[in-house]
């Protein structure tokens, strides 16, 4: 190329085409920021009514015998205790089953077995919570809980907790399995090279190496268990309200169930006095608790991604 005189091109492009580019970009940007708008709306709607509740309610009403919002008894500990018990029972079911299943799938199962076992777990994960709620009430409660404890009523926190455990087991299993598979083969081979057998390798090498992912899966599952509504609402009973109790064989009401039952009462959400506002206060608590748990879990996942 020796010619010095170049023919002149208009490199700024067709103005019409450029204008369209800008328009399209702005459209996508708007779509991108919708999620910020939804977050803002959630916070605004929750905080607004929750503030009305907190500023008008008598503090003594927040610590009474139980949660009976239509009668002006807003015992927050009742809801927190029930949430804690049911989520705890759920975790007692889901952690051993989920971790054991994950370890087997990741370390022992042949590729062919994995090929159909993992989708089967995903089927379990895809079962709507209302179905598990129905099943907790119609099967777990009479066939398991009432057989084991003859004094148990049809509605118990134990039955709801077991149902929640079934719901979150696949979550623990799939996320932990991903974490275990992400452990490099080199580590396993190093372990075998030192003469360790498979079970030692799984327990002493793979499991510790994947611990952050495993913990993240548990926190995620805990957050799901706390946010789960239908199973608890249908199987733990106490639709109008609940007394404060630590006994898993009693009916109970979690934060989510409290919101759902207030909202489905015969007169919808138009209960006594501050009942409507209390919905949003409980919702805000729930929102904050799950937000912290999810943030924590995301942080752990990000950290462990950097490790390998």
């Amino acid at each position, binding site marked *: 190329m020796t010619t010095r005189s170049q023919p002149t091109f208009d490199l700024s492009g067709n103005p019409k085409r450029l204008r369209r580019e800008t328009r399209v970009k702005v459209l*996508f940007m708007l779509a991108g920021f919708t999620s910020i708008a939804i977050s803002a709306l959630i916070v605004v709607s929750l905080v607004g009514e929750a503030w009305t509740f907190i500023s008008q309610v008598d503090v003594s009403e927040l610590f009474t015998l139980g949660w009976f919002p239509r009668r002006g008894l807003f015992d927050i500990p009742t809801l927190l205790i029930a949430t804690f018990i049911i989520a705890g029972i759920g975790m007692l079911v889901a952690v051993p089953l989920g971790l054991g299943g994950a370890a087997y799938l990741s370390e022992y199962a042949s590729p062919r077995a994995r090929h159909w076992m993992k989708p089967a777990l995903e089927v379990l994960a895809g079962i709507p919570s209302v179905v598990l709620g129905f099943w907790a009430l119609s099967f777990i409660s009479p066939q398991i809980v009432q057989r084991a404890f003859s004094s148990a009523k049809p509605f118990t926190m134990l039955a709801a907790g077991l149902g929640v455990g079934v719901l979150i087991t696949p979550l623990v299993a799939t996320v932990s399995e991903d974490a275990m598979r992400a452990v490099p083969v080199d580590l396993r081979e190093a372990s075998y090279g030192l003469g360790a057998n498979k079970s030692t390798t799984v327990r002493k090498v793979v499991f510790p190496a994947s611990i952050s992912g495993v913990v993240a899966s548990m926190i995620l599952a805990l957050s799901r268990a706390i946010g789960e509504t239908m199973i608890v609402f249908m199987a733990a009973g106490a639709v109008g309200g609940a007394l404060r109790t630590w006994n898993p064989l009693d009916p109970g009401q979690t934060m989510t169930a409290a919101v759902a039952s207030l909202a489905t009462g015969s007169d919808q959400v138009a209960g006594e006095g501050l009942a409507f506002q209390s919905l949003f206060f409980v919702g805000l608590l729930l929102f904050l608790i799950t937000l912290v748990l999810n943030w924590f879990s995301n942080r752990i996942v990000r950290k462990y991604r950097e490790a390998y």
Partner: protein
Amino acid sequence: MTSATDRKRKATSEEVARAIRRGGVDWRPFAFQALLFVMLLASFAILIILLVDIVASALPTLGDRGFGFVTDGLSLNPETAGVWTAIIGSLVIALIVAIVAFPIGIGAAIYLEEYAPDSKVTRMLDTTVRNLAGVPSIVYGLLGLAIFVPVVRMIGLGGSTGGKNVIAAGITMAALVLPIVIITSAEAIRAVPRSIREAGFGVGATQWEVIRSHVVPSALPGILTGTVLTLARAFGETAPLLVIGVATGYFAPPGDASLLDNLTGAYTALPVVVFSWSRQTQAEFADTLAPAAIVVLLVVLFILNGFAVWLRNRTEHKW
């Protein structure tokens, strides 16, 4: 010091003794493997017991009435109650979700993956989407109750329900699934190799032209699979609908009212019917009609999931 060596020697001698006695097979690794396998099997056993129990309870209704159960509307009489009204409600909600959440969600994913600069704002956007995906569904119900129901009423679509209708339900559900649509679509778009885009830029295409003609078509299988799975999620959600005033009891079928009256009137959805039947006083509803409705719901979900898998296998790209 000495005790540690002693323990070691003891263990070794024990092993030697065992080796001499029985050929020396250590059963513990096998026990461990068996334990893990049993735990995995337990999950599958639960799934199978659940399905068998529910199908067995549903058989009296489904066996007697067959497809009639699907095509009959709501009724107070357990002999004639069916899920048609609920199927229509669920379908309309799914349609609104598809209209509202899919364009916005896919658009947001395109923005995040193709346009957004690597800045603090973008990272905040990313975190927001992830956090939204973890918000309990019932909180979305509260959002709908506080914002969407009044807005629907304000724009004149309140109808006889004062905004507690299927339109508000569809918008609430759309907000609920939006983060999932964004995350799955963004993953699909991220999987499109850089070279595909560069080919487009190389022949002089603008960014939008590259997205339209290269990125989106290449990412489409992933996007479609994700969106179909999102629909399945919207079909199964119950809690937010309860909060925003879905009908949990019987209501008169709309008959030959106008389309607008139907859209703004009372409504119900498949999972809501499962819930409301399970607490009816007449035993038939909880004993066999609710399980039958569950079977219908699971069949719908199964079809949607199967469709998603089929779509993925059929249109999957290998780079």
